[in-house]
Each structure stands twice: as structure tokens, then as C-alpha cells.
């Protein structure tokens, strides 16, 4: 069956065309991906579990394990949810099913989507298809590794501070964190509700736009959602004449950016210029200095509240104690791994009496300034460009013992997340033989401009994004 299609290079758009023409049946396609998973996933561990073909009429999709799937275990990478089988589908799952997509399986994630490497998964890390000694990024490293290694044509992740964009960059995929409020979170395991967004990961910008079209739009079950202000356009143009691209001075100046990443970024800026874009420097004076501290107060504060629901009473695992309170405390100590505990503790502290104003309250005010300075930049520009990640994929274990070093992976992705803005990561070159991502950030509902810019870069570069060792 695997001879039917070469899943390594197949884009979602090509797969859709194969099915439409009747060259391949949805069942054969699903089986071809399961074969590829059987062949390569023992090494990569992109999937926590896979699913047999269920009669769907179109192509398959991988879903990050924070997305509820009715009748299919959903753990968010945590022991505390081991064995939890949702009794309803997330809205994004329903929308995928309505579009005829078959769920291939659930992909690995840092526990509760907290991390930048998948090393925080209670079920063991995923590995980068370009070099299995390195991380695929995180938290959505499973989806990114799967798409990159031809184990899924496309997939959905969730992004709180960079969990779609950063792994996409580290694995050589395209990933979109959409404008806050454009994709429903109903049925998504919550981490930080004022930041969480679901986003597509794929091999091409057009595939990402296509999947965004399927999952976006208002959902009565998530009252933070809104209708898109304009329909999703699949990009076609290879020119960028008139597109105004801003390059934040303070981001480019960051010492944390590796020389190889910097070089690839600067070539992609030159390319944007050649394609007709008008480039200029811009200022985001606070975003890159204060974004991280602001995020690591707001996100843990919201996490401590969201994770209060895991008490061993209604679902998930329980560790028994003599009293109710002892049972809850023991359940949470046994069930949560180190990173969720750190964030619960940090968030609880930041919200506690006597510290609320100095930490959480102050961070919310900083957030206002970040929203304002991004809004000011978008008066002059259509798109802002930075590298997605300061580094290429790093070796497993490199940052695992130092929480602050791991937090710094999202230095460049966090500010726009706090401002609720869409961001697209597009492969823009290589450093040390590993992919580098270009982050394009737009104003609220500015996805179409991001798709247009990303598509033109992708077409002009024509990078071979199949990991060299798998070619």
C-alpha cells in the first residue's frame, strides 16, 4: 500500500487533488501515512497514538494531543489525564471531520503545552527528523515532526507563546498562530486562556491557509470567537510590490540570535526587497525586553487557575488519601510533572494576596503597552519580520535543567502573542544543515497579507524541506 504515494513530499493540496481525481482513495492515503508512521515513528515519537481509517471522504490530519477527540484518549502529554477519553469533539475536530478529514492520530506535546522542546511530555520526547539527537521544538513538536517526516500531510497545534511557530521553524514547516479569537478553543485543554490559539502546521503556506479556512470562524461554544473580517485567500502572487515590511530594530539586536540564524534572516530580508516589498526599520522599544517577563507572569497565573480543575474527582487519575483534601493534593503531586508544577506555583504566587498588584497586575499593564506599540508599528507597516527562533534545533537535554534557558526559546514569538496578533513561520534557509524560520507578524485579522508574503518567499526560495537523512 505504501507504494501508492510518497508521503515524504506530498503536500496537502497535492493529496487533495489525488483523492479528487480518484487516483488514490481516502482509505489508501490513510493507510500510506500509517505505513510511514510504522516505518519512521519508532525513532521520532511524533505520535502518542494512531487511529485506523474511519470512512472519511478526504485526506488525513494529525491533531496535537491537547485537542479533544470523542472516543479517543486525549492526555495533553500529562500523566494526570492518562486514560481520559473525551465524550465530545473539540470544535476544530468537528470542523475537520465535517470537511471529510480523517484523524490519523494524536501528536506528542510538552505537558499541558508548557515547553519548547517536547521534553516535558510525560510520555517521552519527540525527536527532530533532521537530526534525531535534537529536539523538534515545542510544545507542538509532535505535529511538527510528523509533518516534516511525511507522517501527516498537515496537522493542528496550539500556540500560547510560540508552540506552533517555534517547532515549525525548527522542523522546516510552515506554521500559523492565528489572530486571537479566530479559531474556537472549545474542547482544547486550556493552558492560558487569554493567549491560547489553535493553529495549522503544513508543508506549504497554501496548505496552512487552506486548513485555516476549514477551522476558523465564530463558534457559539467559545464566546471569545469572532467571524473573520475577510475570507481566507489562497495566495497566488509571486511578487510583493507595495507590501510594507517593518524590521524591529530591538529584535534584530538581540544577542541570543545565533549567527547562522541571523545570516539566513538577513538573506530573506534581501529577498523580500527583490520581490518588491518596501523594507524599513521600526521600533518596538519594550516588546523584546519586557515581553518575556510579562508572559511568564500572565501565562502561569492563568495556568494555575485553569489547572485547578485537575483534582482527581471528575476525570483523570487519582491518588487516594485519607481525606478529600489529601486526595486532591496527592493526585496533583503525582499527576503533574515538573514544568506544570513550576507554573502552577509561580502563577499562584503571582495571584496571591499581597503580590497580585506587583506581579500579575503590573504584567497586565505591560501587556497594554505591548499592544499599543504593535498597533503603532502597523500604522506604517503591513507585516513585521523577525527570525522565529533565536536558534536552530538544539540537542536533547541542552536546556532541560534550566527553566529560564528554555523560556528564552520563545523570546521572539511571545510579544505578538501577548498582543493577540497573527504570526506565520516560513522556512527561510538553513544553518548547520538545520532549518531556520522567518516569522511574519501581521495586524489583527492580517492573515491574508502573511499568506501572501510567506507564499512569495517560499516560491522564490524553493527550498528542499524534506530532511536530508530521509531523502
Amino acid at each position, binding site marked *: 500500500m505504501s507504494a501508492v504515494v510518497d508521503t515524504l513530499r506530498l503536500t496537502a493540496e497535492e493529496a487533495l487533488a489525488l483523492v479528487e481525481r480518484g487516483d488514490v482513495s481516502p482509505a489508501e492515503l490513510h493507510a500510506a501515512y500509517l505505513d510511514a508512521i510504522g516505518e519512521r515513528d519508532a525513532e521520532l515519537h511524533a505520535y502518542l497514538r494512531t487511529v485506523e481509517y474511519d470512512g472519511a471522504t478526504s485526506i488525513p490530519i494529525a491533531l496535537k494531543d491537547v485537542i479533544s477527540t470523542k472516543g479517543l484518549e486525549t492526555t495533553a502529554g500529562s500523566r494526570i489525564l492518562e486514560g481520559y477519553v473525551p465524550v465530545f469533539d473539540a470544535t476544530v475536530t468537528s470542523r475537520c471531520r465535517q470537511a471529510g478529514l480523517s484523524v490519523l492520530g494524536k501528536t506528542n506535546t510538552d505537558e499541558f503545552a508548557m515547553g519548547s522542546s517536547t521534553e516535558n511530555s510525560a510520555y517521552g520526547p519527540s525527536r527532530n527528523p533532521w537530526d534525531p539527537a535534537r529536539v523538534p521544538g515545542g510544545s507542538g513538536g509532535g505535529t511538527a515532526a510528523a509533518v516534516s517526516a511525511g507522517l501527516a500531510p498537515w496537522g493542528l497545534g496550539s500556540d500560547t507563546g510560540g508552540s506552533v511557530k517555534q517547532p515549525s521553524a525548527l522542523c522546516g514547516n510552515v506554521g500559523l498562530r492565528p489572530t*486571537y479569537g479566530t479559531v474556537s478553543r472549545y474542547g482544547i485543554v486550556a493552558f492560558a486562556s487569554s493567549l491560547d490559539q489553535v493553529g495549522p502546521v503544513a508543508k506549504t503556506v497554501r496548505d496552512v491557509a487552506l486548513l485555516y479556512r476549514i477551522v476558523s470562524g465564530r463558534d*457559539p461554544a467559545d464566546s471569545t470567537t469572532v467571524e473573520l473580517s475577510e475570507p481566507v485567500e489562497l495566495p497566488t502572487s509571486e511578487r510583493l510590490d507595495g507590501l510594507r515590511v517593518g524590521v524591529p530594530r530591538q529584535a534584530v539586536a538581540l544577542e541570543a540570535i545565533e549567527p547562522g540564524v541571523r545570516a539566513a534572516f538577513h538573506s530573506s530580508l534581501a529577498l523580500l526587497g527583490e520581490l518588491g516589498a518596501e523594507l524599513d526599520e521600526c521600533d518596538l522599544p519594550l516588546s523584546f525586553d519586557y515581553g518575556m517577563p510579562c508572559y511568564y507572569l500572565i501565562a502561569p497565573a492563568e495556568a494555575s487557575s485553569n489547572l485547578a480543575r485537575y483534582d482527581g474527582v*471528575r*476525570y*483523570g487519575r487519582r491518588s487516594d488519601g485519607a481525606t478529600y483534601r489529601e486526595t486532591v493534593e496527592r493526585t*496533583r503531586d503525582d499527576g*503533574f510533572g515538573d514544568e506544570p508544577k513550576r507554573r502552577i*506555583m509561580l502563577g*499562584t504566587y503571582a495571584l496571591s494576596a499581597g503580590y497580585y498588584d506587583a506581579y500579575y497586575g503590573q504584567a497586565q499593564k505591560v501587556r497594554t*503597552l505591548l499592544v499599543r506599540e504593535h498597533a503603532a508599528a502597523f500604522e506604517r507597516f503591513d507585516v513585521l519580520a523577525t527570525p522565529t527562533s533565536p536558534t536552530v534545533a538544539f540537542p536533547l537535554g541542552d536546556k532541560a535543567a534550566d527553566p529560564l534557558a528554555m523560556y528564552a526559546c520563545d523570546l521572539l514569538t511571545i510579544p505578538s502573542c501577548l498582543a493577540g496578533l497573527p504570526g506565520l513561520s516560513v522556512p527561510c534557509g538553513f544553518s548547520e544543515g538545520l532549518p531556520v524560520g522567518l516569522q511574519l507578524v501581521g495586524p489583527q485579522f492580517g492573515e491574508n497579507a502573511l499568506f501572501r508574503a510567506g507564499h512569495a518567499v517560499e516560491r522564490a526560495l524553493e527550498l528542499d524541506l524534506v530532511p536530508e537523512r530521509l531523502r
Partner: protein
Amino acid sequence: MAISRDQVLYVAKLARLELGEDELERLTSELGAILDAVSKVSELDLADVPPTSHPLAVVNAWAADEPRDSLPLEDVVRNAPAVEGRMFRVPPTT
């Protein structure tokens, strides 16, 4: 140190986490380092800046108050570690 061992113990109590002795020690030092880093937000004078709790300027969302089916009871309790009849079973409070 930005946070003391006693403070960590108190926060663990608020967060309903039964921390082991080794965890308590490690978290005291890790939280200290993280708090040092995030305290950077206090450098800014923000007395006149309003807080942002939500990045989109959305107004309240209303839903029609119409009765509709909820999940069947057997589904509601399906994932519970302990159930008695129609109820979640938990140990006594004292």
C-alpha cells in the same frame, strides 16, 4: 532569594500540591531565579496605564436562553476515577 521556603510551602498549600522535601528545595531555588527575571516588569512606572486582560476589543457575547440537551449522565461520569450511582465518589472531608 526572592522567595523563602516557608512562602513556597504556603503557595503549595494554596495550589493544593503535596510537595516532597526534594521538590520543595528545588522549587524554592527555581522559583527564586524565575521571580528575579520576571520582576523586571516592576522597573516600569505604569500608574496611568490600564490593564489588558483580553487582546481583542470584544463586547459581551449573548446566547439565547433556550433549553437544550446536555450530555447523558453516563457520559458525564464515564471518566471519573470513582462513581456511586449518579454521583462522583470522594473521600470524607475530615
